[in-house]
């Protein structure tokens, strides 16, 4: 597979991510921020997001399993998750978080648990997608092609 083809594939893939709503403009912005000074910026931020999210999800699961659920705490966690997901443009996670927070305000444990499942699911999806994307980028780089996102950043 030559670099050009891979580039095309990458573009297609990222397009599909946009179309399916996994990502929004924020991700493009992240890519803009990547330059010679921070060549691995996107990967860095994305992995930060993964770490952070996994921690938060774990905390959330724990918090919701308690007998007396501390909704304030849950809310704070969800808020953080929402902030970080919106910062990398993980749109669907963000949307799930918004729904989650609404139920938090209602103090509806069942619904919160359902939402947590949904958030987890969305997170897994976006994680897979992003990992695939990053892998693709790395392949392009390995194949010696210019990294397509450099084109995006002009």
């Amino acid at each position, binding site marked *: 597979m030559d670099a050009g083809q891979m580039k095309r594939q990458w573009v297609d893939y990222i397009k599909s991510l946009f179309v399916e709503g996994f990502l929004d*403009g924020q991700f493009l912005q992240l890519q*803009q921020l990547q330059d010679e000074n921070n060549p691995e910026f996107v990967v860095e931020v994305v992995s930060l997001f993964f770490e952070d999210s996994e921690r938060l999800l774990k905390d959330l699961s724990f918090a919701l399993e308690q007998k007396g659920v501390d909704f304030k705490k849950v809310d704070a966690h969800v808020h953080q998750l929402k902030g970080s997901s919106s*910062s990398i443009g993980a749109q669907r996670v963000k949307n799930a978080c918004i729904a989650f927070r609404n139920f938090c305000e209602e103090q509806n444990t069942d619904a919160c648990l359902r939402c947590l499942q949904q958030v987890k699911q969305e997170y897994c999806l976006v994680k897979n997608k992003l990992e695939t994307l990053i892998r693709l980028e790395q392949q392009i780089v390995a194949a010696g092609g210019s990294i397509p996102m450099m084109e995006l*950043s*002009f």
Partner: protein
Amino acid sequence: MGNMCRDLFGRLCGYATLLQKNSTPKGRRIFHRDVEKEEFQYASSHCLSSYYSVFVVRLAIMIMLAILIGLLTILTWHFTKIYTAKSLSSLAYGLRYELLQRPILRMWNILNSTAEITTAQVKLSQYVIRRHSNPSTQAEQVELYEAMRAVTWALFSSRKALNSITINYKNGFVQAFHRDLKDNNTFYIYSDLANYSMAASDTNVMGSLSTRQAWDDKAIHGNFSAKWYREPLDPVSGEKIGKAMQIAPEDLINIAGLSQVPDGVASWHVAVSKFTDSPLLSAALPVWDSSNKSIMAVVGVTTALYSVGHLMKELVELHSGHMYLTSQEGYLLSTSTSAPLLTNSTKPPKLKMAVDCEDDVIRMGAEWLHRTYGKKFPSAHEVHVENAMLGHQKYYIDSFFLNLKRLPLVGVIILPRKYIMGQVDERAFKTLVILISAALCILVIGCVCILILTNGVSKEMNLRAELISQLEARRKAEASSNYKSQFLANMSHELRTPMAAVIGLLDILISDDCLTNEQYSTVTQIRKCSTALLRLLNNILDLSKVESGKLVLEVAEFDLGRELEGLVDMFSVQCINHNIETVLDLSDDMPKVVRGDSARVVQIFANLINNSIKFTPSGHIILRGWSETPSFCGESLNFPLDQKKSRSLQKSRERINPNHAKRASMRDNKVILWFEVDDTGCGIDPSKWDAVFESFEQADPSTTRLHGGTGLGLCIVRNLVNKMGGEIKVVKKEGQGTLIQLCLHLSVPVEHTDQHCAVDLTKNSLVVLLALHGNMGRLITSKWLQKNGVCTMEASEWNGLTQVLRELFHARSSVHNNDFDAHYEGLKSKLLTIQDMRNPTFVIVVDIGLLDLSTDIWKQQLNFLHRYFGRAKFVWMLNHDTSNTIKMELRRKGHVLMVNKPLYKAKMIHILEAVIKERNLELQKKNITSSRTTMKEGDSHEFVEIDSTQFDATSSDDSDISEMAGSNPVSASGDKPTENGYLEETNLSKEESCQSSLSSNYATEDTQPISLSSKAPSSPTAAQDGDSECGETNRVTGSSKAINGKKSLEGLRILLAEDTPVLQRVATIMLEKMGAVVVAVGDGQQAVDALNIMVSAEDFRRESLQKERNTRSQTEIFSCHPYDLILMDCQMPKMDGYEATKAIRKSEEGTALHIPIVALTAHAMSCDEAKCLQVGMDAYLTKPIDFKKMVSTIISLTKRTS
């Protein structure tokens, strides 16, 4: 009477109840219908109650009217009837009395006369008898009788009314005269003398009562044997005219005898005779002898009562009715009728009783009296009865009693009531009938009137109910229309999302390197169209907003000129296909930056221009604009085109001269901007000038078929213009087409008031040759250039261009060439002025359309022009569809200044600036040996000027964008996207980039459209960042801008308090890219600590950092804080943003410090913003962070502190 009243009232009441019955169900029916049809409970019940109240009032009025009329009728009838009847009846009583009195009087008279005659006879008899007293002989006796006969005859003949006079002597001899009234014969009746003896008479002389009885018997009964003779007499003379005949005793007349005068006094009785029909009244008196001891004879006189009957008949004939006289026993004496008074059945005739009378009325009257009173007559026998019912008629019956001695009489008069009261009764009846009918009529009419009134009222009720239901229906319709617009709005909102995706994908595609130029331009066009579609959706949303009155105009600063230029650029693409020239003509006095709603302003003009394009098949569309201070308000509306131009010309001249007048007028910040959209289309009929601004209104119904459209465009325009406090109207235009004039009231920020196009072109000794196709555009541009002191020449086609070029360049060698055309006479003078210029710079603006592109001739033409390349700067006006080969060719030949059509002021300025710059560079190159500084000095004035303006504009633009949140589709971005796009300098050659490196010292280079430099690879993408809907692309541009040149946050120290690692990292990178130094902390507590440490270490730091800071910007030196700004996340563990801010503000108390704190929050509610500002934060940013917005916010805050 009372009965009648009750009857009448009852009938009226019945009528009233009938009416009520009639109308009540009607009301109910209406009610039912209301309920069923309209289902409008409240209103109808309300209606119904008022309907009923009205109905009750009507009914009451009707009843009152009926009572009133009834009373009037009764009273009228009463008075007419009763008074008449009373007076009449009293009159009638008199009449009856009179009537009865007269026959009685006659009777009385008869009686009197009879009595007188009887007395006279007696007196005469006494005298005669005394003379012949004691006749001794027969002869004497006869003599006596003869004398008596004579005397009696004399008396008898003198009284015609007498029936008979009889003398009965005591010896039984009878002498009598009798008048037969039937045959009118007079008889003398005497008894046979032979039978009477003197002795007999003697014996009777001394007679006692007993003997008298005997005498009487002898006279009457005992004398059967006596013979009676009758001799007829001549009624006049009393001569004997016939032979005496013996008569039968039954034929004898009634002869008064001694028995009739038993006590020697006169006696009366009623007798009958066979000779008359009527009863006879007979009186008898005795004749006494001289000694008054014995009765010598008895004299009897009979009178017929015939005359009384006659009188009665006469009276009755006159007055009608019946009369009769009876004796006390009831025997009829006389009647007013001719009915027989005597019974003929038996002999001798007898008197009839009144009850047996043959006349019906008399009989019935008598019977009635008898029945009523019987024997017990009232004392005086007087009876007055008014309403005696006899048979079928009513009669008055009156009776009077006449008490004669031994013959009491009763008179009765029977008058038919009809005779007296008939008229009255009839009148009364008629009056009653008339009154009742009149009353009925009035009642009926009144009721009808009332019914009509009630009808009107009920109709009104119905109408009201209908009106209410209509209102309800209208409300429903409005609601449903609201639902419709709501639906439309929702739909457009839903459509926007996929559109955003489409545009985003197009952006990705555009950023693809692999695209060829053609593909690129196609994609760009697609993107433009998508943007337009998106705008349409927004318009629908807008319209529903405007319609619901919820449209709120933004107030933000924006560059009006740039917006309009962008608009014209956009439409020119469309116009080229239509063969229309789009020209933008803004006067120099237009403020550059105004405050207002840029999106709406652009929308206004987009709609107007769109409209013009639709209806203009060929020609031009000019968008003119000029400004006016409010004091001039009234006059400029009527300005004709030419005057206005001259005025703007004049104004600009003023501007070149001292500026204070202008400044003074601008200080009050309000300007009225006038615009005209002038086209050469089909025009609008003057009668429709107002109507076209109504919704769904088009000047010509056929336009929908021809041009499409809904007719909403101008409606939106007018709504928006009105909303901005302006007005719009169609103005009369000379020549073909439409001229729409509008004014907008916009405010101008103070700091920007003087920022017009501040390029001074006069000093550069420029000569511009405009070789352009479009007449209007060329004219306007050249006028503007001349105004600004640039010498211009014009050519409209290839030949003209060549000629001008030849003149321009060859004429310089041979000035006195006489081959000038008359046509170029004007040119000559210009050439002369050009010659006077020191070292003129020629700029030749060539429309690519002037070349013959259909064949290959253009290459030769190009070569021809290329000959002048060294001597003049060529600027190429390209079409959108100009093929790449041409562009390549041009580039190959070194023509780098290529601009897309249309040409307008700002573009011209940029071209000229580029040219000047280029020239300066060349000069620098040439004078490389000479001092560079002096060179700089030469031009520095002008460049600095440009720079400052541009820099300001850029920064303000940045803030614009942040405030408008990218809502402006055309040119919201900080740089000039469209121009960047059109400036086809993409494949800039390497040698040019060295120039660019030279010019890149100017920090704001990239904001200038004619950037000769470093942006080469980025310009295609810059072209699309005009997009508003895809925020990300804005950010892309922004960041690229940051990378490429401007580090607008250079030197700022920023403390970032953010707990989410991802966000922390992203924000840090963003800020660092802009040149800021970022210190990131994880929570609020750390932020406060970091700040406190720094503050405490401030003095030391200040010392130590002194040198370092010197290298930084001025602002930092004066800043007392270690950080210029804090970005504070609101929700953080340990200490959240609000608390941290409070703590920081608290620590700042007492010092003059105020560190700007910007909130970062995911809460997008306005209440959160309020909360942020309340705790002391200065600004507010929402997550995810919008790059541009953040930068502009930071800049504005740090600027403020500096």
